[in-house]
């Protein structure tokens, strides 16, 4: 059985009381948590949208665009709800189009560049496997909106996970070139997996209140699923790398700014533009 992504985090990584981890009241904590959920979906949806018209075949093009649509739908629900919780009159659009890099709370994995098709599928495989397990746990959230979106989206994300897993297997157990490319793609994205399971103070508080998920609860399940697909793909898991963290607190790679340039250009340049 293949080994699985490294997820032992350095203990100093999630220090409390630092400038980027302020103590939050209950409303602000829920707002922040909803941004994490919504921003993951929004940024990955935007990334997948970049493939539109460029995928290897029209069927794949449709698959990627459909997954993007599902993810942006999730983001709309989470961010609209975040705006209501915040109570400052912002809706999902305001949060998507009028926040800057430092205010985004997505994990670093979703903002990674598409690279080639294999790298995109590697990213999708690592993310959707996680998101499906996350949403399963959020079915029991005491927040009605979070539980409702999870109930709806878990069926959609099952498709994402299956599609990505099938591609990992097909590419891994394919030609020399496809095998090399999916191996490279997994190696590129591997170091961003530990962040998916990071339980910082906010995540722990939200899990404690019954709103958020205890990420540690499905880590073993995640490892097993990733390992099973890699084994079927005849791929060795990439070598462990130093985990990279920070997205949940607004510390992003340079890539996010470039995504936001495209994502936010129109509503910022033409503020009253109507669809």
């Amino acid at each position, binding site marked *: 059985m293949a080994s699985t992504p490294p997820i032992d985090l350095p203990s100093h990584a999630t220090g409390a009381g630092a400038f980027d981890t302020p103590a939050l009241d209950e409303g602000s904590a829920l707002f922040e948590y909803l941004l994490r959920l919504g921003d993951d979906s929004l940024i990955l949806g935007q990334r997948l949208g970049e493939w539109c018209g460029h995928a290897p075949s029209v069927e*794949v093009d449709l698959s990627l665009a*459909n997954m993007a*649509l*599902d993810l*942006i739908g999730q983001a709309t629900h989470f961010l609209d709800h975040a705006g209501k919780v915040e109570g400052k009159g912002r809706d999902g659009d305001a949060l998507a189009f009028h926040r800057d890099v430092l205010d985004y709370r997505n994990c670093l994995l979703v903002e990674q560049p598409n690279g080639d098709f294999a790298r995109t599928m590697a990213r999708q495989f690592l993310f959707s496997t996680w998101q499906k397990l996350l949403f399963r746990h959020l079915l029991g959230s005491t927040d009605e909106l979070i539980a409702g979106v999870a109930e*709806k989206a878990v069926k959609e994300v099952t*498709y994402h996970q299956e599609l990505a897993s099938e591609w990992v297997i097909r590419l891994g157990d394919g030609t020399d070139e496809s095998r090399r490319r999916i191996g490279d793609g997994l190696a590129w994205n591997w170091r961003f997996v530990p962040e998916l399971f990071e339980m910082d103070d906010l995540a722990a508080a939200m899990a404690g209140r019954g709103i958020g998920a205890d990420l540690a609860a499905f880590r073993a399940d995640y490892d097993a699923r990733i390992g099973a697909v890699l084994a079927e793909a005849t791929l060795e898991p990439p070598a462990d790398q130093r985990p990279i963290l920070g997205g949940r607190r607004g510390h992003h790679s340079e890539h996010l700014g470039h995504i936001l340039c495209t994502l936010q250009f129109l509503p910022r340049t033409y503020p009253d533009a109507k669809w």
Partner: protein
Amino acid sequence: MVAAARLEETAPIWAVLAEVADPEIPVISVVELGIVRSVEPDRVVITPTYTGCPATRVIERDVRAALDAAGYRHVRIETALSPAWTTDWISAEGRRKLHAYGIAPPATQAVRCPQCGSADTEEISRFGSTPCKALWRCRACREPFDLFKCH
């Protein structure tokens, strides 16, 4: 008595909704699609088919316009995410209309070609022209067709 009076009030609203077509598949109504979850004298509850379905907003707008036009301006529209919509809620009549329109209705067993009726069919792509459909092909008549995904 109360139930009868209530039915008298809600039946005409159901009738209005039965005329509102799904924007993506105009041969079936929103009622046949199963997204109208409840009708009360002062509110209609609808549920989206898919989280990111762009038709959701159009449906809400179309329902609003139909209600207004029929004199039900006071009836408000609410959206409920839970329980999540499932293709099991598509009515028998809705399934028949989908098939006649060239879209294979959601199937748990053999998928039948809506053109020639053959069950000798295969999946081309799990994702199709809209979030609710997959792309299939008939091996018998060679025609590609949409399958309403079982969801």
